[in-house]
Structures are given as structure tokens and as C-alpha cells.
């Protein structure tokens, strides 16, 4: 079983962010966490399955005091064992030493820091609440309290980005005790501050290849478009099209052949945490999802799920060395082309 828990609070809103998060509703945290606990408890009441992964994401999970997590973990404990991957996201400014220690003692064994860059100028440009030195400190602290699976996020393709700047970011990242790195190309998301500012994006395709090659030179293997290093089992489950439960405001869960969506608005979620809206997926929808998710990651695509005409197209790509084929599965060699490959296979 895979569980996602959403924390929709942040200390500041980053200009590129269109996620469901708020900076001015911290006063609702106690009731939000109460509703969250309620809905998790109810969902796990009849559960007999072991929990393979938990991912606490946001927003910024590190703005929530440890005591709230303690209540939730009390319920989760029986389903967790040594194999379980328990991840949490954190921001350098709020992930204090005591907070990190508390998380570690709750059993959280993977932590992912929203660093974005080690350039203070770039951080200001993004409206991040921290500075480079805070990020370094936080990661060192995490290591100190016993985290040995640490990840950090970097953002690139901003107008101010250059190969030199990114090289500097990566050099600093790899001087820290990390096992994983996520590098995201800036997308101008509707609802973000940057959406109406197309000039903030550099549109330098070569930066993608530069980042990929540089990370490779540090010995980390790319296993998804934006992810390198020790595989995050939770995210892998998404790409494997596995079922997962989502808890919190504006979350999505996936069961059998449908997705369900909770209330996006915090107050609505607090009032009615059990609400969910269903989206039923057709066979074609599921096929398409398995296709593009498989191609954007190490997961691959099983040949037998594809109709014959798509198999033919996929075989053509194997012949052209764009895909490889082993053990009944197609594997992509170049994740950056994933969508184009999926489109090529889908064409009829």
C-alpha cells in the first residue's frame, strides 16, 4: 500500500509554484491536522495490508510541528515495518534540528529538501524563504540526526541560468551527504506568478543535457525524467500505475480504475474530509497512462498491454534504437523524449 499525505501550508509562495498551498492560513493548522488524522484513521480502520511507502508532501511539511505528526504516526505504526519507505519534504528554513530529530524518531527514513539553487540571487528571484547557507546547514543537520537517504531539488532553465551557475549548484549539492537529486526544468504553470512572465524561462534546451551529463559524472543514475540516484519507491509506484491513497486537501488517490479527488479548499476539507469526487478511467486512458509513465521512467512498458498496431510502432522504435526490448518490456533510453515516443507509438 502507498500513502500520500498533503500539507497545504508554506511560509512563502514561490513564484513558479501552482500547487495547492497557502501562506496565510496557518491558523487553520490545528483543525486541518485534526481532520487529516480523522480521515487517515477511518481509512486504515479495516486495513490489513502492510504500508510499503508513505510520502508527506506539500506545500511545506516542515511548517507543521512534530506533535501533529505524532498523532498520525500512532495510527500508522502497526502497518509499518523496516522495509517501509517513509519520506517527507522539508524546506531549509523550517527544518530545524529539533524538527529533524523528531521526524527521524517517528520513523521517517527519507527526506527531500526544496533547495532549488545554491545561488542567493536565484533564490531571491524565485521568492524562496531561505538562503544557500540555510540549505547546507539543514542537510548537514539531517545527516547528523541519522537520515541516510537524503534528496534535494534543483530548479533550472530560468533566464538567469547558465552552465556555470548550474555547475556550481551541482558541485555544492554533491559536496553534501545526499543519495538522490531531483532536477526540474521550469514550467510556467497556470496559477503561478511566473505564468504571465514567459521571459523568466530561458528556453535553453542544452541545459537539460548539461544537467543530465553532469549528474551522471557524479555517479548517480537517472531513473526518471527529473530524478537521479537511490530510487524513491513511492514515486516509482506512481509510474508503475499502482494504487495509492491520498489524504489532505486537494489530493488525488487511485484505486482500480478510478481516481478520486478531495476538496481543494482547506476550509472545505476541514469541514468534510471524507468528500471525494471520482474520475473513472477508460481502458484507453489506462493504456495511455501506462505507456507514457513507463517511457518517462525506468519502469518500461509491457509489450502485451499494447494493441498490435502500437506494438509495430514500438518495434520500429526498437529497430531505430530509440527503445530497447528485454523480458517482454520496452524500455526508453532517453527519458527526455518520453512524450514524443509515446505519441509516436499512439499514432495510427
Amino acid at each position, binding site marked *: 500500500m502507498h500513502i500520500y499525505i498533503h500539507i497545504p501550508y508554506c511560509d512563502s509562495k514561490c513564484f513558479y509554484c501552482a500547487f495547492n498551498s497557502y501562506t496565510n492560513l496557518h491558523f487553520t493548522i490545528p483543525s486541518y491536522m485534526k481532520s487529516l488524522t480523522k480521515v487517515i484513521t477511518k481509512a486504515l480502520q479495516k486495513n490489513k495490508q502492510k504500508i510499503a511507502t508513505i510520502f508527506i508532501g506539500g506545500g511545506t511539511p516542515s511548517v507543521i510541528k512534530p506533535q501533529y505528526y505524532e498523532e498520525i504516526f500512532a495510527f500508522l505504526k502497526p502497518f509499518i515495518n523496516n522495509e517501509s519507505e517513509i519520506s517527507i519534504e522539508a524546506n531549509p528554513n523550517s527544518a530545524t534540528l529539533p524538527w529533524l530529530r523528531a521526524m527521524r524518531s517517528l520513523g521517517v527514513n527519507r527526506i527531500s529538501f526544496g533547495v532549488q539553487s545554491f545561488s542567493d540571487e536565484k533564490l531571491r528571484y524565485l521568492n524562496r524563504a531561505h538562503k544557500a547557507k540555510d540549505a547546507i546547514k539543514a542537510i548537514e543537520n539531517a545527516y547528523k540526526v541519522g537520515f541516510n537517504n537524503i534528496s534535494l531539488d534543483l530548479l533550472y532553465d530560468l533566464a538567469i541560468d547558465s552552465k556555470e551557475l548550474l555547475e556550481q549548484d551541482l558541485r555544492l549539492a554533491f559536496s553534501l551527504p545526499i543519495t538522490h537529486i531531483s532536477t526540474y526544468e521550469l514550467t510556467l504553470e497556470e496559477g503561478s506568478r511566473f505564468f504571465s512572465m514567459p521571459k523568466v524561462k530561458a528556453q535553453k534546451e542544452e541545459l537539460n543535457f548539461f544537467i543530465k551529463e553532469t549528474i551522471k559524472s557524479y555517479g548517480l543514475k537517472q531513473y526518471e525524467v527529473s530524478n537521479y540516484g537511490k530510487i524513491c519507491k513511492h514515486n516509482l509506484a506512481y509510474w508503475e500505475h499502482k494504487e495509492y491513497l491520498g489524504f489532505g486537501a*486537494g489530493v488525488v488517490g487511485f484505486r482500480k480504475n478510478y481516481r478520486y479527488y478531495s476538496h481543494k479548499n482547506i476550509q472545505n476539507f476541514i469541514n468534510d474530509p471524507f468528500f471525494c469526487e471520482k474520475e473513472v478511467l477508460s481502458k484507453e486512458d489506462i493504456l495511455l497512462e501506462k505507456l507514457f509513465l513507463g517511457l518517462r521512467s525506468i519502469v518500461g512498458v509491457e509489450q502485451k498491454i499494447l494493441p498490435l498496431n502500437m506494438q509495430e510502432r514500438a518495434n520500429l522504435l526498437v529497430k531505430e534504437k530509440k527503445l530497447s526490448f528485454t523480458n517482454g518490456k520496452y524500455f526508453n533510453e532517453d527519458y527526455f523524449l518520453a512524450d514524443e515516443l509515446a505519441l509516436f507509438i499512439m499514432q495510427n
Partner: protein
Amino acid sequence: MSQKSSQENIRNFSIIAHIDHGKSTLADRIIQECGAVSERKMSDQLLDTMDIEKERGITIKAQSVRLIYEKDGKEYILNLIDTPGHVDFSYEVSRSLASSEGALLVVDASQGVEAQTMANVYIAIENDLELIPVINKIDLPNADPDRVLTEIEETIGLDCTDHVLVSAKTGVGIKELLDKIVDRIPAPKGDENAPTKALIYDSWFDNYLGALALVRVFDGSIKKGQTIQIMGTKEEHQVLDLMYPHPINPQKTESINTGEIGIVVMGLKSVEGLKVGDTITDAKNPTPTPIPGFEPAKPFVFAGLYPIETDKFEDLRDALNKLKLNDAALTFEPESSLALGSGFRVGFLGMLHMEVVKERLEREFNLDLIATAPTVIYKVLKTDGEEIIVQNPSELPDPSKIDKIFEPYVKATILTPNEYVGNLMKLLNERRGIQVRMDYLNENRVLLEYDVPMNEIVMDFYDKLKSITRGYASFDYEPIGFREGDLVKLDIRVAGEVVDALSIIVPREKARQRGLAFVNQLKELIPRQLFEVAIQASIGNTIIARTNVRAMGKNVTAKCYGGDITRKRKLLEKQKAGKKRMKAIGKVQVPQEAFMAVLKIDR
């Protein structure tokens, strides 16, 4: 309104004018002055009935209206015969003019005489029409009627002493113009007792009444119930109904008499048998001599039309058949292309006709089409003595089997302010034009006449001409037969394969330069794909130009976690729909525009 008339109070007249010189507005104003349409029903440009005509401000189909006008206590029937205003339809213009006894020569008071005007004036003079010079738009601040009148006298040699100054916009001079029409245009002088002789000067398809013929009766009359014969096809039909033309309310009548115009209803399912220029006569008592000058409209320009979705071939056939009901000049036959699958080779009267047909097919029949670059007809004399006609460059035989190639030429007439003469001469020279005449009409207007291979003008000549003369030059052309040319077939290879639909025929000395421009244009149009795409131009097996479209580097969005999967799927579906509008040639996706790319190359 439907009272009978003797010929002496009938006046049949056309309007000759250049595009934008206000022909349609003037026609509307005349109709209004005669009270044929109440103010309430008056919409702009009544006689342009197709949407495309209204949008583009051009007249494609000839239209007519019968009007009643009173002068000195006497009622006259004025038949206004509107004519198409574009060089593509000059045959229809000539038939309209042949149906009239007179014509209004409408010239813009600030612009002066243009090439199109001249071409049509010559047709009118050949038909012995009485011409009334009408200077329009005299309300404009820069109107200079005297200069324009002098110009008409100098360029056309027409006596302009007796002219009318009007503003179709404000209505000034319209009454005087109508009086002049009555006074100066001769009444028809047909033989009322002779066998029926009527000229079809337009035909179209009406959803309720079937195919209709718009005719001018020269001798005798057409009566309801009469059995008539179409002399060109020898087919006989019964006249089911007769009408006097009117843009809103056609009036039914029992007969169309000598000298009159009218619409003949025969319940036909297609205009195919009602070709413009043909003669209608009585089936039992036919006229011994048909009206001269009948020649079915000949297509000059050919292009392949292919449905993007290959299973829409039959839909395209149906649509072409339906359009043909209303457009006898449209010809088509099935052809197949290795690159594009099954489609049709379609013949058009010219570039505008082609654009209009393509637009109507897409708009009215909801088809997504690829049009190949337009081409002219070539006559090829093969080494074995056989002569063949080539309408599609890919059909040109192997060079070793060609003895001679002949290409069609046109006489191009251009009128231009003198400051652009240099630019024009350069353009015409680039297009292999041969100067025949250059006359200074006055200190700042020049008339150029060139013999030019038609191949050089079907593509982008008109746009080029307009851009280098800032829109001030006007242009007309007429075919003058075939001449030998040193021509070769230029093939385009995409990813190593010849794409037959992209082949063009070019003069040998320009092949390399065109080939290079063509591959570079295609490079701009073909989006980057999973594979590097080589684009080459070749003559036979010799590659003369090449370039590459680099392989795509990245097409994927950065993030895709649990909450994004549905949104991502929808984005991909959108991209997939976008790709559907491209044609797959092997593993390469080629957008529609690429097939017309040759039109855009700078040469």
C-alpha cells in the same frame, strides 16, 4: 413588374470595373434608385451572394437583376448584368458582356485605369458594346476626375466627352447615370419571329429548383412548357418555370421575350449540362446558327487535393461532385500519390479559383485537405514521337525519354506608377518574361506588356507584384499558347524517399537555386522529430541541395507525480490531436503547409 415589353424599352448593360473601384456598391445604388429593394432589405453588396464573395469583397459568380426605371413618363426595363471581377473568370466576363448592348466603364476617380479594366474594355469593344465612362468615388478628397478621364482617353482611346461623375457611396449622379443608360445604350434588336436563340451566360445550382440557367434571349422567346435544346450537348429539356432575376425576390413569368434576360428552370440535377456560353434553342424548330464564341472554360492550373485522413477520400469525392453542381469549370479526376495516398488532381481557372474551391471544401464540407503546389499543363514530346500532356510534375517521363517540353505562356499586362518600373522589370526578368511593350501613358503611369511562362506566375507572382509596387500596380494576363522550354523535374526527398507530391518542374538554369531555397523552406516547416530528417533536392539521381532537420532533443514535462497523471494524459491527447493534422510519410510527420512550401520560397 412582370408586364411585357417591346424591345425598344429594354436596356441590357454590364459594369466593367477593377476590384475596389466600387462596382458592387454602384450596382446596389442603382438597384436602390430603381426601387427594386426596399431600404429595409438593403444589405451591403446585394449581388455578391456567396459568403466568400462578401468576405473577400470580390464577385465570383455573375449575377443579374431586372429593374424598372421611369424616364419622361415612359417605363424602361434595365437589366443589370453583373460580371465576375477576377482574371480567373474572364471567360464568364466575356459571356456576360456578350449578353449586353452596353457597359458602364467604372473607374475610381483617384486611382485611374487598371489592368483588369483594360482587359475587359477590350472584350467589350470586340463585342461592339456602347461604353459609358463613369467616374466613381468623386466624393473622395483626392479625386481627380479630369486626370482620370484623360487617362481613359489616352490608354483606351475612348471618347470621354459624354461621361458621368458619380459617388456610389453618397448617391450623387446616380439619377443622371440611369438617364444616360436609357439614352445611350441601344435597345436590343432581335428577331421576335425567329426560332428561339438564347445565350447561357451563367448557371448555378439551387437546392430547391435544381440547376438554373441565366440566359439572354437574342431571337424568339422561351415559354413555360416549351421543349428546348441545349445546342452544345444536344440534350432536350422541358421548361418548368421562368423567372426574372432579382437578388431577393425573383419574379415568375410565363415567357422570356426577345431582348430580355431571365432564369430558366428545367429541374436538372447538375450544372454540368448548362455550360456558360452554350445556346438554348427550340427543340422542334432550332435556330440554324448557335451563338458564336462558345468554349467550355478550360482549367489552367492544376493541383492535387488530398484528405489528411486517408479514409475521407470518398467524402472528398462527394464534396467535389456537389461543388461541381454549381461550378462547371471545376474538373477533377482521381489520382494517387505515394506520399499522400488517394486524392484528386483538380483543374482550376486560376489561383483564386483554386483558393475558393479549397476553402469551400474545407468550410462547407468540413474536410481537412492538403493541396499540392499548383502547376500548369506541359506538353511533352517523347523521343518515340508520342506527345503527352502532363498535369502533375511527378508524371514527367524520365529525362532520357523526353525530346522536347513545351510550356504555356501568357501575355501579362501591367499598369504601374513609373517609380516601380525598375522593380517590375527585374521581377519579370527573373520570371523569364520577355518584354513586348512599354508605354508611358502619362508622366507617371506606365503600361508594361510581357510574354511570361505561365509556370512563373501561378505561384506567387501576384503577391510579389503587389509587394514590390506597394499595391499600386495592377495585373492581368491571357494565355497565348505553348513554347519550348529547357525544363527539368526537381524532386524532393524526405528521409531518403522521393515525396512525389513535392515534385516541381523548373527551368534547368534555376534548378540548383530553387532546390536550395525549397529544402531550406521545408526545414523551417517540418518540426523536429525523434529522428534526424534529411531533406534533399534532386534531379534524377543527382542530389543538388540538402539540409537536415535536427532530431528532437526533448519533449516531456518535468513533473509527473500522483496528482498530475490525469492532467498529463490530457495534455498528451491534445498533442496527439495536433499531430493528426500532419501527414505521416514513412516515420516522418509532415505538416500540411509543407506541400505548399514551394509557393513561399524566395527566388
